């Protein structure tokens, strides 16, 4: 008798195990609302990016100007080249723009357009700091988070109206959404994981992002310019821990980026003197 009912217990466990497995293998995300990336092709995203850039940062009457400086451009080129050389299957031709603004922030616009505020360059202490943030932003672009966020927040019809030459108020709204709203936690975690992997492939220390986040958390009370970055990039302890727990492959070596970061800081003082706050002088 005893033996028989234990066989029944085993059958019961197997039946419910099968029910669990059956529900788990159904691709639920595709049953939910379709993701933006499924609705907007890469070609359309590139076009969307071009329109948004032309109507905003690259527009002659833009409030926030793109900084053009040979020294800065070459520094950005050195840092981004290291990452892009090791990027597998890039979806876009990446463009990086340094914009004169004291906020410590960087964000990705559709079509592989990445905006770096001069405040971020000033906050970074090494070229590797910048590389870690940009690897994260490239992750958002490669995973198509930007277009997914825009479609989810504004709807597909708004995106299509921009593509068909929508009016300036719509474009402003799209830009505002792209720049000011945060990604979901899952997206941030995915972009972080992408960043760790890209940093490793580029022979850079994947834990750099955790050091960067820790420094931001530490200094946020003293520096109001950090609030925007923290509102769009929630740097909770789990993200810091994920970076620290990332395991690099055997034989991984760190090759620092050969770039004198003090030159970048000096150049920033010249090209964006009013925007980058000077440390208080002690007399």
């Amino acid at each position: 008798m005893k033996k028989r009912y234990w066989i029944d217990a085993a059958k019961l466990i197997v039946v419910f195990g099968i029910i669990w497995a059956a529900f788990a293998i159904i691709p639920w995300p595709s049953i939910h609302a379709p993701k933006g990336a499924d609705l907007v092709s890469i070609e359309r995203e590139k076009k969307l990016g071009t329109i948004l850039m032309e109507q905003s940062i690259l527009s002659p009457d833009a409030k926030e100007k793109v900084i053009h400086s040979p020294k800065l451009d070459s520094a950005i080129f050195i840092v981004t080249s290291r990452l892009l050389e090791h990027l597998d299957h890039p979806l876009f031709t990446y463009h990086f723009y340094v914009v004169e603004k004291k906020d410590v922030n960087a964000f990705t616009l559709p079509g592989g357009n990445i905006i770096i505020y001069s405040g971020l360059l000033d906050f970074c202490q090494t070229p590797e700091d910048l590389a870690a943030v940009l690897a994260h932003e490239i992750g958002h672009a490669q995973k198509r988070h930007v277009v997914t966020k825009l479609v989810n927040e504004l709807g597909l019809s708004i995106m299509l109206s921009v593509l068909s030459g929508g009016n300036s108020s719509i474009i402003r709204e799209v830009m505002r959404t792209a720049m000011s709203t945060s990604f979901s936690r899952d997206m941030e975690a995915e972009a972080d994981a992408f960043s760790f992997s890209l940093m490793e492939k580029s022979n850079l220390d994947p834990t750099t992002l955790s050091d960067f986040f820790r420094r931001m958390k530490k200094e946020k009370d003293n520096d109001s310019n950090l609030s925007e970055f923290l509102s769009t990039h929630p740097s909770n302890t789990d993200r810091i821990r994920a970076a620290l727990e990332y395991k690099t492959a055997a034989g991984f070596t760190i090759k620092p980026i050969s770039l004198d970061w003090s030159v970048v800081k000096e150049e920033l003082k010249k090209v964006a003197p009013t925007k980058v706050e000077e440390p208080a002088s002690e007399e």
Partner: protein
Amino acid sequence: MEENQKYFPVPQPDELTRKEKDDAMGGYLMMFAALGAGLPLPIINLIASIIYYHMNKSNSLFVKFHTYQALVSQIPLTLANGVCVFWGIRIAIFHTWHVNNFFIGFALMLLVANILYLVFGIISAVKASRGRMYYYWFFGPMAYEKVFLVANHVVKAPAVNHPPKSIS
């Protein structure tokens, strides 16, 4: 069959009083009442069933069988519901875990299990109120053995007489 492998006879409906039938039915109804009161903490129904079982275990075998079956059958489901609530809290409040297909599958499997349990709970409550036995898969035979096996009721007196020490 040895003496201690024998089972007490299963009571028939006409041998049971109205109170015994109602008490047996109460084992299942208690579970539903407590389930509603206990949400989202799925432990309350288990505590209520344990109390109800202990209040009724000295009652007739019929009542003891049904209250015991109601109690043991909800232990795995309560534990699984607890796991689901804990998993959900980690996702929704602490954001330390993420919704994935394992969680969705687990939650839906539990939904099926809870609906089945509700259906079988109602069936068994009705059966119990009519003085009928009703055996769940696995839990039914287990409760039957626990309650009706004669050996489980025999209380052996401690041995006081022993052989002479020189021989043993």
